[in-house]
């Protein structure tokens, strides 16, 4: 008989993945080139994100961080290169497979992107209604749990316009985790938030990873947040138009591979590392 105190593993993804799951990284990006029409924004981007890792994509304004996120979430197609989601070529999948992969992702957009015509409960409940066989009562209760996890118990019937920016972001996080995704993407989670709310959101990110072993990819230039939550970070250099650093943030700060990385991680406006 097993030890009753041994934690049970979290649920496997809804779609079985190919091969040995533990050997395959959650996300693998190979030689990615991103372009708008003929204009290449970034090229030669390669990295992997391990399961349960908190991975930060950082860089200055306009460096293409959000564009990388759009490629990772399938909103944009790479000009060249491959993006693998648990070993599967995400972009090349057929519609059904693509939808199945998307259901295993959750995205928190920069402005929350809550549907303004729906209440918070309806916002969180919509993915549950669309992608599970749960009845209305179960959906309502799970919605309440999700909102409670982000500190919004009792706000089920509120519309997004009636709550503050920080609450909107937390409600959007509740929607992002509605389906217990394997991978969560955050686009500038702390933008527009006061330091306390931003720190609370960081706590939630850490808690979600600790509780659900979720792989988390965060796009941000908030240094406090980067040093607090990131296991590893990728630096996009707007001048070089490619990635110029990859590693734990504190290691990159102590041994910066370029002057730009040094300036970014030490908030300095000039000088060599």
């Amino acid at each position, binding site marked *: 008989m*097993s030890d009753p*105190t041994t*934690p*049970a593993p*979290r649920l496997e993804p809804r779609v079985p993945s190919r091969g040995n799951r533990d050997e395959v990284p959650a996300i693998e990006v190979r030689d990615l080139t991103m372009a708008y029409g003929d204009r290449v924004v970034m090229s030669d981007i390669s990295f992997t994100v391990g399961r349960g890792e908190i991975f930060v994509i950082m860089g200055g304004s306009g460096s293409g961080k959000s564009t990388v996120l759009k490629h990772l979430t399938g909103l944009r197609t790479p000009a060249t290169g491959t993006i693998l989601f648990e070993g599967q070529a995400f972009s090349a999948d057929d519609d059904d497979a693509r939808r199945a992969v998307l259901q295993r992702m959750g995205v928190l957009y920069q402005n929350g992107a809550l549907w303004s015509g729906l209440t918070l409960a309806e916002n969180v409940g919509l993915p549950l209604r669309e992608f599970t*066989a*749960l009845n209305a009562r*179960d959906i309502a209760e*799970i919605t309440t749990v999700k909102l409670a996890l982000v500190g919004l118990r009792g706000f089920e019937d509120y519309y997004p316009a009636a709550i503050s920016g920080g609450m909107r972001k937390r409600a959007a996080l509740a929607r992002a985790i509605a389906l217990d995704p394997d991978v969560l993407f955050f686009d500038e989670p702390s933008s527009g938030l006061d330091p306390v709310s931003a720190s609370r959101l960081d706590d939630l990110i850490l*808690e979600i990873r600790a509780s659900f072993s979720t792989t988390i990819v965060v796009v941000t230039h908030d240094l406090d947040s980067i040093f607090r939550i990131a296991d590893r970070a990728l630096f996009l250099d707007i001048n070089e138009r490619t990635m110029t650093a990859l590693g734990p943030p504190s290691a990159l700060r102590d041994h910066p591979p370029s002057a730009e990385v040094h300036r970014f991680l030490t908030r300095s406006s000039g000088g060599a590392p």
Partner: protein
Amino acid sequence: MQATAAAHTREGTLIIALGGDWSIDRAPPRFAHTVAKAVDSNGHAVQRVAFDARTLGRWDTSLLLFLMQGQQFCEQHALPCDTDALPEQLPRLLALARAVPERTQEAPPPPGVVTRVGLRALRLLGDLREAVTFLGQVALSAAGLVVRRTRLPWRDFWVVVQSNSSGALPIVTLIALLVGVIMAFLGVVVLKRFGAGYYVSYLVGFGMLREMGALMTGIIMAGRTGAAFAAELGSMKITEEIDAFTTLGIAPVDYLVLPRVLGIFCMMPLLTVYADFIGIAGGMLVSATLLDLSFRQFFSGLLAAVTISDALLGVLKGVVYGAIIGVAGCMKGLQTGADAGAVGRSTTSAVVLAITLIIMANAVIDWLAALLDV
């Protein structure tokens, strides 16, 4: 393996044995159902609740939901709830979910009929006051232009003028032509019965010049330009561009509303005259085809009856309709709310308001014209 939850009592402890894989893809067991049998059949007094997770497989939020129901059960029955045997993350998640107390609010009693009517009346009064205030602001801004206190952004003005001249001609042409044709058809059918087919030109002339030319142009422009004004200003409101004007000390009415209202105000009479000509031409074509009336006969009949005051009345209506379209569109745009659907609502209400006011203005002007024998 499907999620299972079985309850039994032992020495005053209600033990919930959790097993299998818990997934939100399937309806999870409910705590109340699970404990009902165990408590009923034994009848023993339960002193505490505990969990046994030895056969628990994989889990997600569905298990958290079950445990929260369990916590609620314990609170209702004042029982201690022992979660020590659960996977370590679960008590933490339970604590997190309950970290912020539920926001409870007393629902206000539903208002009675009298209160609802009163509230509605107050809202209407508020809307009316707002509309009058806005109209006053536009009038003051226009007056400021005359005394050179207000500076008109000419570029915006010319954009509106262009959009409501060459840009509006195709749709105005089509609708005015069809209205002229319809009126002529009506005249041919009705007047021919009395042997007065010749008077079709009277009907088309009077109809287009006094009523239909201005009215149809007004309705077209309310749907086209009024809606565009509301959508433009509404989008600017949502993106805080209007606030940016205000905080800079620039009155949005001077900078955004006046060029739009003046633009449509200037163009509506011209479009009305154009619609009059096109409508009459449409009527003439039908008369020539169905009554063998020559163009000369049609025009001589028309000019014998129609006076310049008929044409001027139509033009005056065009001026009034132009002001209504501009003011209604801009006012609704500036009143736009903060959500994504707000622009749509503003646009709709701008068009509805403009058309309603145009019809009402038409009735008032016709009544005054009848009084003055114009």
